[in-house]
């Protein structure tokens, strides 16, 4: 998100530089932005680093990209992030989740919760990006919907052929990031991190012999047993290559409703199916009690191996209840199909419909276009930042 904002600032003729945790440095590869890495051993010295950067660069504003991440980072280094308020430089927070709606308590890993430090009300300037916030004109609400991916037919054909798809095959894309492989050494989260791809692969296997799963992520999953040569793993790709693959797909399957790839697919008229889980279960009986029908043998066995189950909208972290307020009456959710992980029939029916029924596909694409139209009426982050800095009181972001 921060990079997108920086790119827009760059295109508008402004300069942007990053003070960024070393783990996130790869995200800045091939970008024109200066970067100062933050190493974990820095600890409270981060304050000196920030001070020296501000003294050196004399920025017009400091942007927290985003509030949640920056707050967690500073506190992790043993620093109260409020020190940033000491500077005369305007402080702008990217409020990804719209904390005034979601609150600050995040559910994850079963019944465990985590509280994010609440100092956002002390920040006068907040960018609320749509997606994921509702695309309704309010202070700070701006569009962050990416430009659509458009690739030439010959490129699409080449990419698909290289992946191993024939002209009649259909391709379902699934993306993972490093943080989705093992969740903070938490046993339950790690179990779900490992097992969800297998269940999704099982669902894909039921869509027909010509439906392939194309997985882009840091490491392959052992899914060949379910899909054979219909499982294709691609390592992490450059942004251009990623767009080529995304633009060559027939459907995006996601287990993270807030993923930027979902937004890019929506903007690019690629159907998106988001899987979430609302089932909190410690036993098979508890899990099956929430099902509309008895589970298939595979699903039943999968549940048994995956207990305890906990709700998530950001697999495998959780964020289920936390995100509910911001997703309520949010047209973003109409631009994609949202299905329950354990509702085998619905997952398969929805995915199959989008792959096989032009009517179902067209209906969703119309919703995507309507959503894109709504976001297009919003100001851009740069416009809002400029308003902030010009002293436009209307743009001040009260809840």
């Amino acid at each position, binding site marked *: 998100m921060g990079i997108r904002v920086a790119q827009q600032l760059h295109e508008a003729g402004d300069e942007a530089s990053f003070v960024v945790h070393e783990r996130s440095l790869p995200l800045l590869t091939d970008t024109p932005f200066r970067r100062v890495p933050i190493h974990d051993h820095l600890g409270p010295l981060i304050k000196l680093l920030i001070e020296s950067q501000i003294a050196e660069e004399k920025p017009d504003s400091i942007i927290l990209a985003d509030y949640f991440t920056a707050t967690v980072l500073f506190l992790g280094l043993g620093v109260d992030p409020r020190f940033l308020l000491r500077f005369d430089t305007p402080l702008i927070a990217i409020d990804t989740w719209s904390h005034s709606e979601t609150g600050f308590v995040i559910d994850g890993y079963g019944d465990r919760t985590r509280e994010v430090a609440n100092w956002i009300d002390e920040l006068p300037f907040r960018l609320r990006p749509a997606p994921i916030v509702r695309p309704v004109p309010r202070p700070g609400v701006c569009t962050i919907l990416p430009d659509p991916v458009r690739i*030439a037919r*010959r*490129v699409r054909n*080449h*990419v698909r*052929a*290289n*992946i*191993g798809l024939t002209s009649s095959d259909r391709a379902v894309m699934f993306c993972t990031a490093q943080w989705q492989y093992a969740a903070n050494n938490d046993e339950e989260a790690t179990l779900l991190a490992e097992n969800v791809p297998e269940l999704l692969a099982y669902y894909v296997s039921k869509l027909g012999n010509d439906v392939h799963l194309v997985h882009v992520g840091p490491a392959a999953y052992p899914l060949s047993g379910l899909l054979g040569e219909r499982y*294709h*793993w*691609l*390592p992490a*790709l450059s942004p251009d*290559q990623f767009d*080529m*693959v995304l633009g060559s797909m027939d459907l995006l399957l996601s287990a993270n409703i807030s993923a930027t790839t979902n937004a890019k697919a929506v903007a690019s008229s690629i159907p998106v199916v988001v899987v979430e889980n609302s089932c909190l279960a410690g036993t098979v009986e508890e899990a099956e009690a929430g099902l509309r029908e008895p589970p298939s043998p595979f699903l039943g066995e999968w549940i048994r191996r995956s207990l305890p189950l906990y709700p998530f909208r950001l697999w495998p972290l959780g964020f289920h209840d936390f995100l509910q307020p911001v997703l309520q009456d949010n047209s973003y959710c109409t631009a994609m199909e949202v299905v329950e992980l354990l509702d085998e029939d619905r997952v398969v029916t929805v995915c199959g419909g989008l792959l096989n029924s032009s009517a179902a596909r067209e209906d969703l694409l119309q919703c995507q276009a309507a959503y894109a139209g709504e976001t297009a009426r919003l100001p851009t982050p740069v416009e809002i930042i400029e308003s902030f800095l010009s002293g436009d009181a209307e743009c001040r972001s009260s809840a």
Partner: protein
Amino acid sequence: MPIKCLSVHLTDLCNSKCTFCVVGSPLYTKDTIVYERVVQFLHENANNGYEAVNLHGGEATIHPRFFDTLEYIRDLGYPEVHLQTNAIALSKPEFARRVVELGVTLFIISLHGHTPEVQDSQTGTPGGLMRTLDGIRNVKQQGARVRTNTVITRQNVTSLPAITQLAVDVGVDHINFSNLHPVGSATFALERITPTFAEVREYLYPAIDIAAAAGRRVTLEGFPYCAVVEKAGFHLNNEYRDIRMLMRGVVIEDYDAFMSDTCRVFVPPCGDCAVRDLCGGVYPEYVQLRGWDEFSAFPTAGSPQPALAGPTLTSH
């Protein structure tokens, strides 16, 4: 004999769609190359001791200013021109004749299969193999030297001996085998097309033997030395030792160093390896896909010694 070479990426575009294209030509719908920059590069390096200009792409022969470029190189006085090509355009005798007349002395021709099924399915050009073979014959008839280049993939690895025999039969002077560099187009096909080195060795070694028995020069390009220990005397990376390249507007001062520094990595077994500097390491994309279990420090004292000190190898 190592020579000083100027290397020019003339175009991004190609009339083939190779699954393993290292520069990703099939992913380009328009050329990003500014021709005036190519002309400038050739001009500013003339009379600087470069013994050859190597033209490549994409497919250089389809560039609308291809012949103009050859004329310009000739007029600037470069002693030799080498052309990397799929030779499809050279299947027309008149085209081949004109290219040779304009000074191309060495053709480096892609040959990735011995049958249309093996070659054309990888290059995406139905009928391509036959035209490539015609192209080889045409330039040989004009007295030019031909080196074939075979990128080794899962699709052609078992055919390496047959491909080599075909190259011998059509009179190729020099047969080069390239280790697949899994970038560009190959990024999308990694698992499907990337063979393990164990798979490669099983067919590569007999292929080398066929070429050697026929008196043809054989080289290996881009292979970690420990992956082909028994054939370590065949590495190509000595042929040009001073390559200055123009690639999409960027001048790469030392292509060998660029490849070592930015396109390859050393894995733990490389730590003690005696030929580490010569070898340059392994492609990180390969390591990501297959791990590094196949690699080990190159054998030294007490081990069978390959022709490491042979005349075709020079150190940095």
